[in-house]
């Protein structure tokens, strides 16, 4: 695993600050330059502040944007310059309790928008940054203000926002239209049957709220990525969901069908939720066939290639973020490994896919 937090020494009395590790010469006041390099420890300086990073090589952090927390002696790697997978955790609060949630909600909220704004301004040119939670739109006013503030100076950036879609309102239309080219909304829909969707997200009435809000995104011309985690609860209904998407959500830019991540509630509920698509791809295949016939885009996330029949492998993306991705010992001899999403770090073979076959 690639570490997202580094041990960092600096004056504990300082307030948390955002800095960028300069790749060569510093380009702005926030850039930090290397001034010492000892065994296992790098010394950096930004302005008058000095701090150290442990167990990392200069090249690994070059260009990274860090949030240094002096009190806890930690540096959060908010943006890793070499990675396409950078996400700001907006909040850990959520109004849904999804069966497979990989990031279970917590009641308290810590407002980090000032740090995220500072970090965004230091991001590499043209970067896409994920905004996730919890449910980011629980803090909609602050979130929208943050996005406006970022785009005011950095209109080269774009955000991929994961939201449960419960909090859009008609009054948001103009704002959504204004930023439509720079925001990609990832919104989960688990079934076209409201009862099934509500059961999976643990919130009665969720589908009834989601439906008109998706229409708002459509009317705004927003870029919409529908996301469906395959579970035992919704797998048989995927062909019906595909028909629903083709008819009612044709404005979605893509439909991502995703495999489960065995962490958080996903680990707790693995036994009753994990759908082994390696031994039964029929409902997935039927859903994909319909999307192909309707010329709508569909993507498979988190599916190891050998679990997908050859006719659908071109849809399987290398979707697992680099820092939590792994391969199995069996993958060593596989010819498809370089194109394969592989597995989540916390995947377990004993209760995972039955059919893992190096190709």
């Amino acid at each position, binding site marked *: 695993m690639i570490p997202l937090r580094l041990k960092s020494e600096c004056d504990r009395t300082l307030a948390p600050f955002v800095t960028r590790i300069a790749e060569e010469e510093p380009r702005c006041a926030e850039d930090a330059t290397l001034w010492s390099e000892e065994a296992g420890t790098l010394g950096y300086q930004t302005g008058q502040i000095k701090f150290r990073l442990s167990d990392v090589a200069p090249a690994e952090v070059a260009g990274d944007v860090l949030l240094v927390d002096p009190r806890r002696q930690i540096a959060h790697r908010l943006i890793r310059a070499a990675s396409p997978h950078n996400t700001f955790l907006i909040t850990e609060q959520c109004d849904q309790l999804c069966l497979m949630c990989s990031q279970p909600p917590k009641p308290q909220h810590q407002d980090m928008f000032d740090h995220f704004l500072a970090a965004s301004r230091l991001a590499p040119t043209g970067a896409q940054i994920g905004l996730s939670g919890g449910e980011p739109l629980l803090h909609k006013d602050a979130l929208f203000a943050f996005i406006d503030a970022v785009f005011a100076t950095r209109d080269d950036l774009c955000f991929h926002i994961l939201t449960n879609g419960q909090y859009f309102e008609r009054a948001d239309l103009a704002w959504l239209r204004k930023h439509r080219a720079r925001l990609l909304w990832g919104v989960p829909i688990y079934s076209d049957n409201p009862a099934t969707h509500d059961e999976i997200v643990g919130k009665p009435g969720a589908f009834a709220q989601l439906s008109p809000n998706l*229409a708002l995104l459509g009317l705004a011309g927003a870029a919409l990525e529908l996301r469906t985690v395959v579970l035992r609860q919704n797998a048989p209904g995927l062909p019906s969901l595909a028909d629903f998407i083709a*008819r009612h959500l044709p404005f979605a830019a893509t439909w991502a069908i995703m495999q489960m991540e065995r962490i958080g509630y996903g680990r707790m509920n693995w036994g009753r939720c994990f759908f082994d698509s390696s031994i039964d791809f029929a409902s997935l295949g039927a859903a994909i*066939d319909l999307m192909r016939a309707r010329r709508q885009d569909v993507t498979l996330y988190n599916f190891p290639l050998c679990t997908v029949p050859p006719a659908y492998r071109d849809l399987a993306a290398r979707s697992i973020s680099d820092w939590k991705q792994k391969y199995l010992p069996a993958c060593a001899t596989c010819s498809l490994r370089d194109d394969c999403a592989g597995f989540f770090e916390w995947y377990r073979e004993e209760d995972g896919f039955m059919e893992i076959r190096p190709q």
Partner: protein
Amino acid sequence: MQIWPLRFRDLDDQRTILADDSGAYFLAESGFVDRYARDAITPPEERFLREKGHAFEWAGDLAHTGFLTRWSRRQHVGGGSAYVILIPTLRCNLKCSYCQVSRAPLAAQGFDWDSETLQKVLGFLDGLPVEEIQIEFQGGEPFLRLDLLQAVAAFARRRFQRVRFVVCSNLQTLDEDILAFLDSEDVLISTSLDGPHQIHTRNRTADSALTKNFLSNLERVIGLIGPARVSALPTIDMDDPPDPEDLIAAYEAFGFTSLYLRPVNYQGFARKSHPAARTSTAWNAYYRGFIDTLIARNALTGRVMEEFYLAHCLRRILAPGLDGHTDLRNPNIPTGANAVIDFDGQIYPSDEARMLARIRRVNLAIGNVSDGLDQEKLALLAPGHINNFDPDCIHCPYQPFCGTDPIDDLSRSGRIDVPRQDSWFCQRHLAVFDLAMELIYSKDPAVEFTLSRWFGLETLPDALRPIAP
């Protein structure tokens, strides 16, 4: 609940096809229309209409927004790329009985671009507001003027970011220079293969030795550049059409997996020598029989041959976004971006339009390479290329997938306002779409096999054939 307007057409005694303006279709037993007209549909039918997106509760709800999207995509025609047909020469080394362009003899003078016309053609291409272009060389036989093809290709490769050339050639003669031209990945060949040897000879070469030349040239070209860059189509003479099995076998023999059955175009020489091309009954019957044969054969062999036009129409039924075909919309959106530039520098909105000018039926030129496009004429032609407001088409469930062909109407009737059902275009396409719908709703495994392969699917989803309860 509000239901979007439905159009309908009986598929047979018991079954009716219905569709809304977005092209969403379904099948119902024939009593449905009665109940729909009397505002007396049943609760299960209401539920069906709501689920399938034919109805909505309030403007702006998800069903309404989904419908608007599907409707607007049916209207939208993608821009950004050009499709230009160039006729560097009208001369040809063959004299096919059905020649639609009334080609000029090999030795004739004054039927080629001169160097000034070439420069103006390049200037016209240069001025197109696109970075992507497909250039089709028609004739005559374009390879008679390989030098002009080379000049256009060299220019276009510099000027455009993405470019593709299609040479519509009879492949009657090849030489080293032609083969060298074909060697580039961006060059495709489209040729005519009318089926078995004797039919090809009768229709096209009038000489068995010439047919032999062609067949060996075709084999050589496929061997050189592969079957993916070569396409062929048979033109069917309804006075003596080929046996479908023989025709398919002739295509399989060359490794083709797709063919495009074309009726004799009622243009050019065909007007005199193929009077049968005027009527659609025989064509429609032959076409249906051919498709039956093709589907049975695919099931039997496990190999899949595609009839391009039916597959194309089927794909259009299933989804929007496939609008680039002149047989369905002629002229296709009349702008300079899909112009035809004739041997004399005249610009036409479509290939058939130049043919009408050639026989002096009507001059549909929309400009010339010296003076540019005639915006007034373009504006005059523009309303004729869509079927949305045609008084007959608005009642037809196939309207969202279908097109219109005022050029063919002009050719056959001298006017564009003939009742649709009397036009060859409408008769042909009603038959094509009726057949397409029958196939979509067929439960015959042989049909399902062919359709799923044509669509690139493993199985044919049931959701493609909704049936009202």
